[in-house]
């Protein structure tokens, strides 16, 4: 079965790129600029991995991460945070994220990490 990946980033261009990138690699992609989708999952629609941007419009991605990790339904879903801020990586562990990738990135690097957390 195809692995499901949820992507949340406030830039449309990046979301489009993720759609193309991940679906070509064989993943099922659910992408949105609104973090709300991360809290609307049903048992059937839970993703196998979440890619989450740190700087979202009006919302801090780190708070979202913290919240997801504290909820029973979502706490076991691996989260990879992404950000253009070079220093953002340091605070990832504190909020419970499993990994971090800086923008821009090599797609192979991304795939390696995804495989690591979805196998």
């Amino acid at each position, binding site marked *: 079965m195809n692995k499901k990946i949820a992507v949340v980033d406030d830039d449309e*261009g990046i979301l489009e790129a*993720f759609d193309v*990138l991940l679906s*070509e690699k064989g993943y099922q992609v659910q992408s949105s600029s609104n973090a709300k989708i991360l809290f609307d999952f049903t048992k059937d629609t839970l993703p196998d991995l979440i890619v989450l941007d740190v700087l979202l419009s009006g919302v801090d991605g780190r708070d979202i991460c913290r919240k997801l990790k504290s909820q029973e339904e979502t706490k076991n879903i691996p989260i990879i945070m992404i950000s*253009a801020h070079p220093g953002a990586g340091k605070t990832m562990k504190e909020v419970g994220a499993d990994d971090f990738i800086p923008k*821009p*990135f090599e*797609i192979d690097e991304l795939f390696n990490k995804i495989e690591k957390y979805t196998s």
Partner: protein
Amino acid sequence: MNIKHISAKLNGYPHSLTSEKSSHDQQFVELLAERKKMQEQLERLALSHQAAQIESFEWNIQKNQVFSSPEEKALKEIKGKRSFKTFDAWMKTVYPLDRERVKNVLQSAIDSHAEFDCEFRVFWSDKSIHWVSSKGKVFYEKKGSPIKLLGINRNIDAQKKREQNSDFLSEASKIFSSSLDYQQTLESVANLAVPAIADWCNVDIIQNGKAQQVAIAHRNPKKAKFAKEFRKRYPIDVNEPTGIAEVLRTGEPRLYPYITDEMLVAAAKTKKQLQITRKIGLTSVMMAPIFSQKETIGVITFVTSETKKHYDQSDLQMAGELASRASSAIENARHYKEAQDAVRLRDDFISVASHELKTPVTSVKMFTQVLKKHSEKKNDRQALSYLSKMNRQLNKLTELIVDLLNVRKIQTGEMELHNALFKFEKPIKEAVEMLQQIYTKYTITVIGKSRCVIRGDKERIGQVVTNLISNAIKYSPSANEVKVYIGTKGKYARLSVKDFGIGISKEHLDKVFERFYRINDTITDKTFPGLGIGLYISYEIVRRHGGKLWVESEIGKGSTFHVAIPFEKRKRGKK
């Protein structure tokens, strides 16, 4: 002897009124005439002393009698008054805080046979306080005991006021120049004036067309609070003919030496306001304008109430001087604030800009790499080659963005360096490995070794090495090798990056580490791409590790960049 005759003689009546000529009468009459002459002279002297504000005095030490002046003494005797005070009685006319000092100076003058020279305050008969400069000389008996002290007292009120004003102004200048904070500067103006020259001081600045009270000081802090409230309730109308509004309009200082009740009535708009201003008890007011670029932007108001001092022209002049210095200080503070805001804005801009720039670069890079994979699959060599170039350019773009951000960080002191121990060789070897993979046309050779352990930021040092090697490659378009030497010299871990490229001419040599400096290849007249900040950042990083970065070069032959960083320890390994 007939009194009438004598008085006639004294008053210059003709001889005819006198009768007998007896030598006794003659002598006596002449004596009286002399005495009258002397009296007139004394009165004239007393008057001139009074005019010059000089008074001579005599202290008969042995008899404990102080005479305010011989002419005064003579006059008083003629009038039948007691002409002297005891020393203690005289001391009572000296201002209490000065008494001790005056006594000490007197005693020391007597003991050391030196001149007496002292400045102190005295009470006049109307209880007003005045400054006096007193100078005198002690006279002694043959056996050395002091007889009397003769001297001159001079009123130095005007001089003292000038001194105080001058001290006040230089104190003001000092305070003004110590802070570039706009608000602080204004507050310090008010606080300085009270209680030195006023009981109350306000600073009003025009903001949004209204006069806003931005600073206030009062001798009595409770009253300051009250004054603030008062202003809130009765704001200044800039159209008023007099007062602060007038000064704002005309840019001229104004003096109201005596505040009368009529003035209060005229200025008050409501009964309540009049009541309050009466309660405050204004004695004297002066206002001085504050300028900024030739425009009046505010007013400093000085008020006396409790001390009942009345301002005069010399006070107004000083107030004007104070306002002028305050204007400069405020101007400087304003400029500084604007500059700071601009810098902050710029720094935020760079921070935001570099973040924003990375976003589109990210999606473009993602699509480029997807296409790369496609062309790999389809075995489209051409497309693959083009897309690889595109990807490299995107990496360069990313580097430039990062450099931009790094420069800002270094400038604002935000660049945090890790503080950890690492092997000097490690970041060097990692950088060489990575760059060798990218720049396959060049051979990067590592020569030598170092067992040094450095305390600092391994990643940042790696950044420096990457920068030096990339530069070496960038500036060797016709060469194909770069040599990297590692070693130890004295207390330093040493690294040298040698290239065989275009080299650097003597005039550029010490400028290469400057921000934004880029070298021109004089032969091809091409400026090498890049923001020119790599070496600037590298220099700073090395410096912050306590080390040095420098270069040796010969034009046309190549360059060698040297790095020396003090090491914390050296591992002695087995061969």
